[in-house]
């Protein structure tokens, strides 16, 4: 059963990418709907299988590492696979209605979309460093292509900037991989860990790790390397922005986190961990502040991504040199943050897209007084904002709670201030948007209500993000499932 599931999971995106490449937008849309259904069902099935039986290692095509591709199907990975399926399906669905079929270049949306999906799955499941690289590159190239779909000079400028950053990041990562391989002679993360634990290898050097983290941080848009993100996310089509913010940046972070958790204990150090933490904190503060200052709605959301990504990097200090329990708590917190941010940010971008469509302008001021039309999307936007603020009962809150606990337990109380201040700052920019919508006495009396399904999608995502906090326990229990040996 699981074999079929795995096959379906890996095969569908690539196959659909090729399929959709050959047809126009409308046909691609139909084809994609089917593919998305398959993908979501397969992901659900895999998740259920892992949740009941535990994780396993999967050798693609039966070939052994290092030349074969070894996939690590554990609880965390399937959770992200499922998350990807949900968010991507939502964005794809939204895009299929949102995008104008009349523009010829929109037909390329579908293949890019599917390549992106394939790359994401590869990253979540990838077990060795080089395959992760390939996955990353697949994601980056597809993502750049999606950004460029905007078609205007501005979109292209943002896309090229994004591409350059992504390529540089990838290369830094690849150099690190090369150095690691030179040192340990293996590419499997598990193998490297094993070698280090057994003490066979001479104690490793920090440099390759730093190099890889640097590259990944660039791709994740960690402060101060975030410059490429807001233009790219801000200018892309809303479903694309949603995909980028929700999933793409998480892929590189996911790799960084895996590296850190496996190798950081040996190769990292207190100073490095704290440095990354500080950068993350600065990202939270600075990103939120900039988000507060933006005049365009989608820029607000984009800068909010910069800030939210900052939270993720608190993983590094909170897992270095602490007890197992605290580390677990921090990991759980970060995982929840990844998921809830993915859901909330996707909801936010989609809702922002709807709002822009409704009021015919992308400026925050243009929202003045629209709340009297009861825009459904504004409500979704607000709900997603609640999660970003880290207020209960959202997933964002559960994440923040766990991080708070971890920082308290590890004695690193200074992150508390960051976490709390970050919540307040995000409240500032979310409420700025909200506040505008309540202004009366404007001459806005035209309000275009987008179609129902466009409005429902962000609402579903926002509600999921909201509900995540309530069901955090079961979700987390699946995540922490280890994979049992090398079974198929």
């Amino acid at each position, binding site marked *: 059963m699981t074999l079929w599931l795995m096959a379906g999971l890996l095969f569908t995106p690539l196959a659909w990418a090729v399929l959709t490449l050959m047809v126009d937008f409308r046909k691609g849309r139909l084809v994609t709907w089917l593919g998305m259904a398959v993908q979501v069902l397969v992901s659900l099935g895999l998740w259920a299988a892992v949740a009941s039986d535990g994780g396993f290692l999967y050798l693609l095509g039966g070939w052994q590492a290092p030349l074969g591709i070894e996939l690590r199907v554990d609880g965390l990975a399937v959770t992200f696979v499922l998350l990807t399926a949900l968010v991507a399906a939502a964005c794809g669905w939204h895009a299929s209605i949102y995008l104008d079929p009349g523009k010829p270049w929109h037909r390329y949306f579908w293949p890019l979309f599917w390549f992106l999906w394939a790359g994401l799955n590869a990253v979540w499941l990838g077990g060795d460093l080089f395959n992760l690289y390939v996955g990353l590159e697949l994601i980056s190239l597809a993502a750049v292509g999606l950004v460029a779909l905007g078609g205007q000079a501005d979109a292209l400028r943002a896309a090229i900037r994004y591409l350059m950053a992504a390529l540089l990041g990838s290369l830094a990562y690849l150099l690190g991989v090369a150095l690691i391989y030179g040192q340990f002679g293996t590419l499997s993360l598990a193998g490297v860990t094993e070698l280090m634990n057994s003490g066979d290898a001479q104690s490793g050097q920090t440099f390759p790790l730093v190099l890889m983290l640097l590259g990944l941080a660039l791709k994740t848009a960690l402060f101060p390397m975030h410059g490429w993100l807001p233009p790219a996310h801000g200018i892309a089509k809303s479903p694309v922005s949603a995909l980028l913010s929700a999933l793409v940046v998480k892929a590189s972070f996911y790799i960084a986190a895996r590296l850190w958790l496996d190798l950081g204990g040996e190769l990292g150090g207190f100073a490095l961990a704290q440095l990354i933490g500080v950068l993350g904190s600065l990202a939270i503060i600075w990103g939120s502040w900039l988000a507060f200052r933006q005049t365009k709605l989608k820029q607000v959301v984009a800068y909010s991504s910069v800030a939210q990504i900052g939270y993720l990097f608190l993983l590094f200090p909170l897992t270095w040199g602490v007890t197992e329990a605290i580390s677990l708590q921090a990991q759980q917190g970060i995982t929840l943050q990844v998921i809830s941010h993915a859901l909330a940010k996707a909801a936010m971008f989609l809702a922002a897209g709807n709002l822009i469509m409704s009021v015919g302008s992308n400026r925050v001021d243009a929202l003045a007084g629209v*709340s009297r039309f009861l825009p459904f999307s504004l409500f979704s936007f607000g709900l997603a904002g609640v999660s970003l603020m880290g207020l209960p009962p959202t997933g964002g809150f559960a994440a923040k709670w766990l991080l708070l606990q971890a920082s308290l337990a590890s004695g690193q109380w200074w992150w508390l201030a960051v976490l*709390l201040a970050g919540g*307040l700052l995000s409240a500032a920019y979310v409420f700025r948007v909200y506040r505008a919508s309540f202004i009366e006495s404007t001459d806005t009396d035209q309000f275009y209500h987008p179609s129902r399904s466009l409005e429902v999608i962000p609402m579903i995502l926002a509600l999921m993000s909201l509900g995540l906090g309530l069901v955090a326990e079961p979700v987390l229990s699946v995540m922490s499932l280890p994979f049992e040996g090398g079974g198929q």
Partner: protein
Amino acid sequence: MTLSVLMPVFALMTSLLASVILFALPEKGYRLRTIINLAAAILKIALVGVMIWGVAHGREYEAAFTMVPGVEFVLRADALSMLFAGLSALLWLLTTIYAVGYLEDSPNRSRFFGFFSLCVASTMGIALAGNLFTFFLFYEMLTLSTYPLVVHRGTTKALRAGRNYIIYTLTGGAVLLFAIAWLHGLVGDLRFQEGGYFSDVDPSLNGPLTIIFVLMMVGLGVKAALVPFHGWLPQAMVAPAPVSALLHAVAVVKAGAFGIIRVVFEIYGLEAAEAMGLLAGLSVVAALTIIYGSTRALYQVDLKRRLAFSTVSQVSYIVLGLCLFGPLGVIGGLVHLVHQGIMKITLFFCAGNYAETLGVHRIDELDGAGKRMPGTSVAFTLGAFGMIGAPPLAGFITKWTMGAGALEVGMDWVVAVLVISSLLNAAYFLPILHRLWFAEQCEPWPHERRWGRLETSAWLLWPPLITATLMVLAGLLANVPFSPLSWAELIVLREVAL
């Protein structure tokens, strides 16, 4: 899933579902909206009533599940939660009736009632929360759901008030979260429990526990409008009258006060808090707030603003009552939770009536309003006397019980505070009453509206009359079973275990 699990969930769900439905309704569905609103409110009263009956007879209602590892989501109905739940269920119905009348012909009603229900759902959640974490959850939800109500009018003033409200409350929430997280880190997940947890705590923890207590009081004090965190409250009175009524009487300030009660009683334990010397400081803050709020109220010319400062002062009675760490004082504090709610909501209803019917907002425009609107004015008079603490109204019961409690534990200065506050209350309420009843109307009303034979719309008139009656009954029949006082006694008997 037995009934005992489902009851608190149902009680929460009635208004939550109502809110969802109301959001979905089209703006024009006036009648349907009113029906849904009232049906939900009545259903909630029934549910809460059943639970009150059950709790009085020793039944337990609890629903719990784990949310985040190590943290539970607990809804529980105990005597204390029923005090608050009963209050909010009852006043929700009245406020809804009032709001229907108040917002007649005004825009954005769908939005208003949706958030209104959400706000009540949060309040109900706060009442039923079984541990700090759940409490915090609804506490923040309340912040968010009241914001749209505060800025409902959408004027610059309202938006500014809303901004300040959000800044204050979210910051308070952050501080509270910090404290809760710290406490959780120190001792784990704490359900609210009779007598608290720290009666025989390791002395080495005293330091952190003290700091946590202070932080919690700051976090909760923002909503309870303790000085110096009261700044948002007088501004928030720009909201429509039903919102002010709800904000001041039931939801927001009470949530803060209720949280303080929970923390002091059921986390720290009254004795432990006293032993650690925490209550002394709190009582001083509360006393200062009482005096400060009353003094500021004296100088307000806007009726609702005066009432708002009066709230600042009155809510601290609840806090002060707790600090008296004796049974009587505690009863006084608890009972004031209800009494203040009924009295203040009456006053705000009346203020809303004056504004809506006569267009009167300032106190000096009220001359002779008693003749034009006798029903409203009678309710206002009763409310004002209740606030002053004149017997046999509800406020007197509070003051009497608290005064007796203060003497019981030798904190005589509290009596002085009560007396001074009553004098100040009299000083700012009695002139209004004089204007209502004895001054001759000199100028025409600013914006008078006529409702035929009645002095104002029946939707607006009945709620204050009912609350005023309740207030009189709460005082007159204080010793009857299920009166607020008796219920507070029951709580003290059962929970505080002094």
